[in-house]
């Protein structure tokens, strides 16, 4: 079985985002960028399925700027087999990303596509579900455990009330939640080896996908700031404050 794993280059999760003074977006100049953490979990899961002998090839895909190559190389160093960069400097919305991924899947014929549940920049939480819709496949979102079982896959999902298990026919789409696995670090020899793994350069036009945004961003601003309040000296003072609030 072939597994496709889309990966996105995003602001590193340790960086506090700052909105640009002109209100057009978040300032990403000279900011550390990394692979979206949920996508790392997706790459790791694919590698584990390959190690178990369930999958035989892992193709990683990124839709983004030339620098997204670095993200793809990271995935290759973790253990993916080859990469496709669909290069564009435009911001591509989840629907257009899903259309590109569908076109790639039409060529590649995957058994599973494993995606992060959301990217920590736009926080959309859409691409996996949209891809599943376009491909007419079942979707196991927010996965915390994935077990291949013949022609189907059992997915334990993190839901509001706890956990839920669904059984999906293959091929299927999976999106990862935080507890699915702990991604490995690439070793130095693997980072070297990744440099010679195949990386194909494509554009959205190669897949016939129009990436013009459907949502127009009119303005971006910082949320109202909360300022620090008071410090209380001891538990008695805290009890007094809670009483003032009427909660004790």
């Amino acid at each position, binding site marked *: 079985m072939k597994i496709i794993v889309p990966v996105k280059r995003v602001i590193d999760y340790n960086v506090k985002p700052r909105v640009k003074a002109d209100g057009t977006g978040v300032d990403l100049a000279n900011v550390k960028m990394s692979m979206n953490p949920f996508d790392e979990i997706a790459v790791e899961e694919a590698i584990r399925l390959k190690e178990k002998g369930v999958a035989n090839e892992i193709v990683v895909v990124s839709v983004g700027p030339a620098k997204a190559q670095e993200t793809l190389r990271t995935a290759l160093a973790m253990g993916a087999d080859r990469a496709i960069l669909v290069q564009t400097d435009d911001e591509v919305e989840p629907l257009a990303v899903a259309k590109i991924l569908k076109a790639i899947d039409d060529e590649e014929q995957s058994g599973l596509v494993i995606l992060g549940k959301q990217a920590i920049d736009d*926080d959309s939480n*859409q691409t996996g579900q949209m891809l599943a819709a376009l491909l007419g496949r*079942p979707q196991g979102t927010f996965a915390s455990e994935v077990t291949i079982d013949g022609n189907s896959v059992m997915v334990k999902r993190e839901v509001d009330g706890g956990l839920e298990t669904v059984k999906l026919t293959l091929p299927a789409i999976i999106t990862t939640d935080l507890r699915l696995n702990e991604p490995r670090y690439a070793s130095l020899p693997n980072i070297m080896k990744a440099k010679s793994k195949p990386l194909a350069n494509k554009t959205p036009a190669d897949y016939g996908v129009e990436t013009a945004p459907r949502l127009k961003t009119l303005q*971006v601003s910082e949320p109202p700031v909360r300022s620090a309040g008071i410090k209380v000296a001891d538990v008695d003072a805290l009890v007094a404050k*809670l009483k003032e609030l009427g909660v004790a």
Partner: protein
Amino acid sequence: MSKTLVWVEHDNASIKDATLSAVSAASQLGEVHLLVAGSDCAAVADAAAGIAGVGKVHLADDAAYANALVENVAPLIVSLMDSHDAFVAPATSNGKNIAPRVAALLDVAQVSEILSVEGPKTFTRPTYAGNAIAVVESSDAKLVVTVRGTAFAKAEATGGSASIEAITSTGDAGLSSFVSAEIAKSERPELTAAKIIVSGGRALRDGDTFEAMIFPLADKLGAAVGASRAAVDAGYVPNDYQVGQTGKIVAPEVYVAIGISGAIQHLAGMKDSKTIVAINKDEDAPIFQIADIGLIADLFNAVPELTGKL
């Protein structure tokens, strides 16, 4: 007048509160219709018809909808979208699962987790863990929107008298089946509906210690219990306790953060709380930058003392 279809979240017996916030948001877009899809769920449809301001309830009662399997529910929603201009779902785990599938089937870009309705097609929504609020305008013919529950008042659950119309099931898509659920039952209030929340972090050491420290305090205050990702990852409490960017979004009257550092991903889930109380032994912990009331102390002394004195 434009018509909006709201997906009703329920367990085949009662309606989940998040639906009521979605109804409030939808009512700002036009006439509100509801979809109750479930199995043996007539009681839910009756309750839905009673929500104030609702024009009509569409009821699809079929075993295929018993567990909100998205592969079955999404085509049903699409079948109703010829006669509606917008689809709205609460930004719950189910809503987030369903809405994008509907959006793609309609070839529409979804607007996720709206905070406000600014115009017929204009919304605000959080990005970058709530550190950047975007005003976005849709150019699509139809809208697909999910609604952040904490950002909208709940519609009145009673007072309405909408008609209920049974609709044809689109059946089982044959792609998925429900196997089991591990849904925790708790006597405590639900996290997203609670007035007071007591949350614990990595500092709580293990599940037993978390329970011994956090639960008695929560019970004294009549509070719900939450946690940081670190506490959930370490297995102190189940995943549904996680508050944050990628967990639950809460905005209670009082949020008490104990042994939580205040990473941006955690703040994203609780910084709209009315009053934030933090107990942490590190005076430089970022949580103190947003806490209204801070106590610098070792939680293993302070929390039992606090519980005892309340």
